[in-house]
C-alpha cells in the first residue's frame, strides 16, 4: 500500500471509528445544534460526524421520532409503498454516528445569547447553529389541512390523502389539486402527483366497471404558475397523451380561498369542486427563521452559497440549509443532502481555523440534483443538473449542458428510481 493510500484512508474516517470518537465530547468541543432531522439536517449531522474528527458536540433537534421522506411518498398514495418504509428513526442514526438528539420543537432563537429556546422552556447553547427546518405554508382563507391534506410534508398528511383516495373517490370521480407558486419544494413533484392521481382515478373507475358505466374520471390541476415548472415536455405529453381527457391543466390559477368542508376551491382562474381535494399552498421559510430576522423580510433566508452561513448583517454562526435558504437552487431532498455536505465542510473548516473561501475551495463548491418521477404504476421520467459556484456572480449557477431530462418515461427508469432512492436514503438516514 502506498503512502498516499494510507493517508487517504486516515482521512476517509470509518463510520465505526467515528461513532466511538464522537461519544468523547469534551467540555471544549465545538457545540453544533442542528434544527430539523430531514434530508438537510440528517445529512449534515451525519457528515460532520464523519468529517469532524471528534471536535464537535452535535445535537439534532426534531419534534418527531423519525423523518418521513417526501421522496417516493407519492407511491404511498398509489398503495405501492407504506409510509413506514419511508420513515427513518433519528435516534438510530445518532447512535451510529455518535451525536445527540432532542425530541422537541424550537420556540425561538436567541441570536445574541447563541442559544435556541425549546418549547418545554429549556434552552440549548450553540457555537454554530444549523437550521434545516424545511418549509411552512402561507395562510389561505378557509384552508384546514386536517380536512384537506396537502401531503407535501410527508407523514400523517400522506396517509390521510391515501385514505381519502382509497375510500372517498368514487368511480368516474373528480380530484382537484393545486400547484404552489414557484419556488416550492420539488419542482417536478406536483406534476408527478397529478399523473399518479390520474392513474389512481382511472384504476378506481376501471375496477368498478370502466368509464362506460361511470364516466371518465377527472383530475384538475390548478397551477399558480404560468406553465409547468419542470420537465415541461414530459408532463405536457403525459397530461395530453397518457392522461388525455382525464387531466385538465389550468395555468395561472392562483389559490384565493378553500372551502375545506365541501372540498372546493376558489382560484384566480375560477372555482372548482371535487370528491377529493389536494391543496398545496405557497411555501415560505418557517416562522422560526422569519422571527429571528434570518429572512430579512423576504420569504427565504439569504446565505453565502459556499458555506450556507446567513448573510443577514449582525447575525453570525447561523447556517441555513435545504428548502428554507435563498440561493435559488432547486428545493429538493437531493439538493438538501448536497448543500448539507458543503455546509459540514465549511463548519469543520471554520472551527479548525481554515479558510472557507480559498480559491481552491471556491473552484470546487458544487451541488447536483437528480430525481425520478413516476408517471404511472410502472414507468418513470428523470431530471438532472449540476450547479457550481460562480465567483463573479457570487452565486450558485447551473452548469450549461448539465441540465438533462429523459425523453419521455420508461420501465427502466422506474427500476432505477428505486436504486436512486435507496442510495439517497442510505447516504442520509442510516
Amino acid at each position, binding site marked *: 500500500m502506498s503512502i498516499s493510500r494510507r493517508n*487517504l484512508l486516515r482521512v476517509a474516517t470509518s463510520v465505526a471509528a467515528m461513532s466511538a470518537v464522537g461519544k468523547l465530547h469534551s467540555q471544549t468541543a465545538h457545540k453544533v445544534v442542528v434544527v430539523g432531522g430531514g434530508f438537510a439536517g440528517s445529512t449534515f449531522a451525519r457528515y460532520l460526524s464523519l468529517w469532524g474528527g471528534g471536535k464537535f458536540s452535535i445535537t439534532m433537534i426534531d419534534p418527531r421520532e423519525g423523518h418521513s421522506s417526501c421522496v417516493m411518498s407519492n407511491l404511498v398514495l398509489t398503495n405501492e409503498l407504506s409510509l413506514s418504509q419511508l*420513515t427513518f428513526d433519528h435516534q438510530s442514526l445518532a447512535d451510529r454516528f455518535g451525536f445527540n438528539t432532542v425530541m422537541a420543537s424550537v420556540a425561538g432563537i436567541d441570536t445574541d445569547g447563541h442559544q435556541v429556546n425549546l418549547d418545554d422552556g429549556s434552552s440549548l447553547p450553540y457555537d454554530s447553529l444549523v437550521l434545516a427546518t424545511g418549509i411552512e405554508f402561507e395562510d389561505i382563507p378557509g384552508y384546514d389541512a386536517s380536512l384537506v391534506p396537502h401531503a407535501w410534508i410527508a407523514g400523517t398528511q400522506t396517509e390521510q390523502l391515501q385514505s381519502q383516495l382509497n375510500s372517498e373517490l368514487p368511480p368516474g370521480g373528480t380530484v382537484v389539486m393545486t400547484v404552489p407558486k414557484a419556488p416550492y419544494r420539488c419542482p417536478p413533484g406536483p406534476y408527478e402527483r397529478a399523473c399518479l392521481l390520474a392513474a389512481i382515478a382511472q384504476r378506481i373507475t376501471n375496477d368498478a366497471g370502466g368509464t362506460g358505466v361511470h364516466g371518465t374520471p377527472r383530475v384538475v390541476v390548478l397551477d399558480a404558475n404560468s406553465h409547468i415548472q419542470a420537465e415541461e415536455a414530459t408532463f405536457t405529453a403525459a397530461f395530453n397523451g397518457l392522461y388525455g381527457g382525464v387531466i385538465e391543466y389550468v395555468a395561472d390559477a392562483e389559490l384565493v380561498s378553500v372551502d375545506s368542508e365541501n372540498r372546493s376551491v376558489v382560484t384566480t382562474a375560477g372555482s372548482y369542486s371535487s370528491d377529493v381535494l389536494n391543496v398545496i399552498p405557497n411555501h415560505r421559510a418557517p416562522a422560526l427563521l422569519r422571527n429571528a430576522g434570518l429572512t430579512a423580510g423576504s420569504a427565504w433566508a439569504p446565505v453565502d452559497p459556499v458555506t450556507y452561513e446567513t448573510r443577514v448583517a449582525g447575525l453570525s454562526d447561523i447556517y441555513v440549509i435545504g428548502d428554507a435558504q435563498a440561493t435559488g437552487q432547486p428545493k429538493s431532498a437531493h439538493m438538501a443532502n448536497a448543500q448539507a455536505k458543503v455546509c459540514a465542510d465549511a463548519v469543520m473548516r471554520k472551527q479548525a481555523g481554515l479558510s472557507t473561501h480559498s480559491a481552491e475551495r471556491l473552484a470546487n463548491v458544487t451541488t447536483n440534483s437528480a430525481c425520478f418521477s413516476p408517471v404511472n404504476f410502472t414507468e418513470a421520467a428523470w431530471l438532472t443538473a449540476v450547479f457550481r459556484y460562480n465567483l463573479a456572480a457570487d452565486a450558485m449557477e447551473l452548469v450549461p449542458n448539465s441540465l438533462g431530462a429523459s425523453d419521455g418515461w420508461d420501465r427502466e427508469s422506474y427500476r432505477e428510481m428505486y436504486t436512486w432512492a435507496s442510495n439517497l436514503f442510505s447516504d442520509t438516514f442510516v
Partner: protein
Amino acid sequence: MQPNQKSFSKLSAAMLLTVPLSLPVFADDVTINRMLASQCSQCHGTNGYAVGDIDSLAGESVREIQEELREMQSEGSPDDMMDHQALGYTDDQIRRIAEYFAGLPENSATDTPEIHLSASDASSDGNHDEDDERDEDDERDEDRDHDKDWGEDRDEDDEKDEED
C-alpha cells in the same frame, strides 16, 4: 487546530510523492476533494459504497473513473442521466473526484446499514424492524462471500486496521 493542519500538510506531501502523472502545481487539499466527491454519494453511496445496482466508485482506479466520465462527456447526444452529470464537472474536478475514490478501499471496512427500498416490501411493516435489518445484513454478507475480490479487499482492510 495544530494537529489538523499538520495532517493536511502530510497528506499534501503524500499526494506529491505518489501521483506524478497528474501532479498539480500545488498539492490538493484532500478535504476539498472529499467535499467535491461527496456530491456523488447521493447516488453512488457514502464514500462511494453504493447500494444495489449502481456503480460503486470506491477503489476504482483514477484512470477508470476519468475515462468513464470523459466518455460520458463526449456523448454526441447525451441521453443518460450520467451523460449530463459528467458535463457538470471540469477536468480538474474530475481528476480530484477520481483521486479521492481511488484512494479508498474497494469494500467498506465498516458495517454501515443500507436501505434497500423495493415495491415488494409494501405489504410488510417496513424495513426498520430488527429482523428485516438482520436479513439484509445476512444477504450482504453473502454477497461479499461470493465476491471474487474478497481476499484482496480483506488484505487492504487488514492493513487499514494496522494503520489505525
